[in-house]
């Protein structure tokens, strides 16, 4: 049984109408926002939106709860930072290298994790991500507690100067939009339909002749690679890659973003990312422990609000017809 049996009942037509609406609203907001709000904050939100959407590709459309997705985000951040700073790769190639490294890591983690199902899958991903954290702590190229600092932003495709925040914002917007487009294509492809069939009833999918392990692994690698795309971009934005990115707390945060926004919806994860990052930024200024608040939101979401913001809106619109 999938975690979102109740959500998959949403009618396709309603979804596409809502998606189109959200897309239009999102596009307008994304174009206007950097002139109103600090672009670095927005870039952070965008990166986490992509990260959460990549995570949602697994939980929402294959039914796999990865509790170690920070490893991919963080690994790509390290590799991108290293490639840009030490190897001197152009920014776009550095980010790409980071994403590929994350996908490769995803291949290893995914290969091990899909050997067990359900709750075990989550525990294995968490444990392997923690192992990766300890490796990052030990190996020299990550520079331990200091992290990789002073990563050059460079230029994008050789002509966009990324030291200009506004210009960089639109580059990030393009990367994140491309990432989301890829997810949208995956979800609506024949491959995506098989993933959903596995999510809803794995034994049945197997009996229909699909090698579910191979599909799960491919989805896992895609999700890890996209999470890496987000992580690599984020490292260039902040010119920094640290242990924070690979900590289990970060894996928890991306779960929260997706849960809060709406598991299994395309608009949900970005909404959840915006709310979570916004709250974190706001709370940094007041004296209230962020982890406690994150924990409380988790508890409330799981107990009362399992459909998330986007899921609730969808349910409301369905009721109205």
């Amino acid at each position, binding site marked *: 049984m999938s*975690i979102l049996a109740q959500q998959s009942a949403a009618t396709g037509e309603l979804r596409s109408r809502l998606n189109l609406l959200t897309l239009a609203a999102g596009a307008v907001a994304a174009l206007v926002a950097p002139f109103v709000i600090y672009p670095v904050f927005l870039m952070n939100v965008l990166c986490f939106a992509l990260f959460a959407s990549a995570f949602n590709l697994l939980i929402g459309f294959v039914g796999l709860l990865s509790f170690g997705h920070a490893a991919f985000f963080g690994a790509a951040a390290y590799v991108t930072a290293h490639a840009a700073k030490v190897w001197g790769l152009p920014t776009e190639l550095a980010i790409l290298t980071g994403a590929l490294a994350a996908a490769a890591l995803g291949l290893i983690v995914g290969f091990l994790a899909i050997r067990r199902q359900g709750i075990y899958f989550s525990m294995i991903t968490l444990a392997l991500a923690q192992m990766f954290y300890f490796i990052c702590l030990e190996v020299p190229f990550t520079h331990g507690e200091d992290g990789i600092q002073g990563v050059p932003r460079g230029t994008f495709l050789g002509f966009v100067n990324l030291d200009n925040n506004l210009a960089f914002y639109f580059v990030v917007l393009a990367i994140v939009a491309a990432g989301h487009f890829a997810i949208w294509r995956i979800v609506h492809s024949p491959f995506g339909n098989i993933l959903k069939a596995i999510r809803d009833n794995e034994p049945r999918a197997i009996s229909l002749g699909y090698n579910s392990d191979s599909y799960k692994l491919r989805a896992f690698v895609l999700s890890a690679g996209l999470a890496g795309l987000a992580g690599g971009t984020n490292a260039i934005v902040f010119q920094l890659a640290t242990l924070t990115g690979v900590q289990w707390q970060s894996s928890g945060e991306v779960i929260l973003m997706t849960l809060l926004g709406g598991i299994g919806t395309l608009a949900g994860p970005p909404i959840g990312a915006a709310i979570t990052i916004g709250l974190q930024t706001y709370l940094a200024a007041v004296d209230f422990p962020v982890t406690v608040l994150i924990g409380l939101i988790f508890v409330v979401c799981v107990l009362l609000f399992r459909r998330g913001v986007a899921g609730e809106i969808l349910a409301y619109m369905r009721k109205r017809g």
Partner: protein
Amino acid sequence: MFCIPYVKCLPLVALYGQLLLGLINGSFYALLSLGLAVIFGMLRVINFAHGALYMLGAFVSWWLSITLGIPYWGALIFAPLAVGLVAVLIEKSMLHQMYRLDPLYGLLLTFGITQVIEGTFRYYYGASGQPYPPPPALSGPLNLGFMILPIYRAWVVVISILACLATWLLIERTRIGAYLRAATENPVLVQTFGINVPLMMTLTYAFGAALAGFAGVLAAPIYQVSPLMGTNLIIIVFAVVVAGGMGSILGAIVTGYILGLLEGLTKVFYPEASNIVIFVVMAIVLLLRPAGLFGRAA
């Protein structure tokens, strides 16, 4: 001297010391994975909060000592009770709603609860630890001739093994244990016999939590009492549980001790890998025997 050819030579005393440390870590892994397995068997919930409850056990001991002057021996009884009580509140107010949902929600809920508990403690007590001395009767070293054994550490190993055995006997050899085993297999039928399964679930969660709290009391004099002491531990215990398989009570205990010892040995011969050795073992087990060392294939 003790040598592994081409690897390392070191004094036997150092080896014994690390093996003892491994045995102690193994004791905590065993106590915690045992509780996780018992809870999972009955509730089908992976209790992420297990590490936080362990931390709570240590904090209650410390708090009992500094505010009420209750010594270690009292803490050994009252702290697990207090943690069990907290668990009853968690189960009654929130966790019981998860049973009819996908098990992933139980994991997410207990993850959230963990964040709240640990975040609150970190807010009030910071990341640094509070000292908690061992009781006078268990302080000091014992000279075994071939090594100096701190009495408290020996005590932890012995009492943990006893606690694990007692739990095993309770589950495998008593009437209450038979209820538990039967309810794990078929809760509905057990209810039609007149057994209050919802109450059993609450008590099972409280019992597993109390075991974690008990481990916390034992740990207090060894490690510092700190809000973060359970955080990393719980993830290691997850790896232990995956490697051991959750089907068997004895399996959880044995795997806990074996992996603790292995970690101790790694600290001696290749300290750089000591943090990850348990995860590596988990990965190897997944490759060779996906159901776990003591698990049965689903």
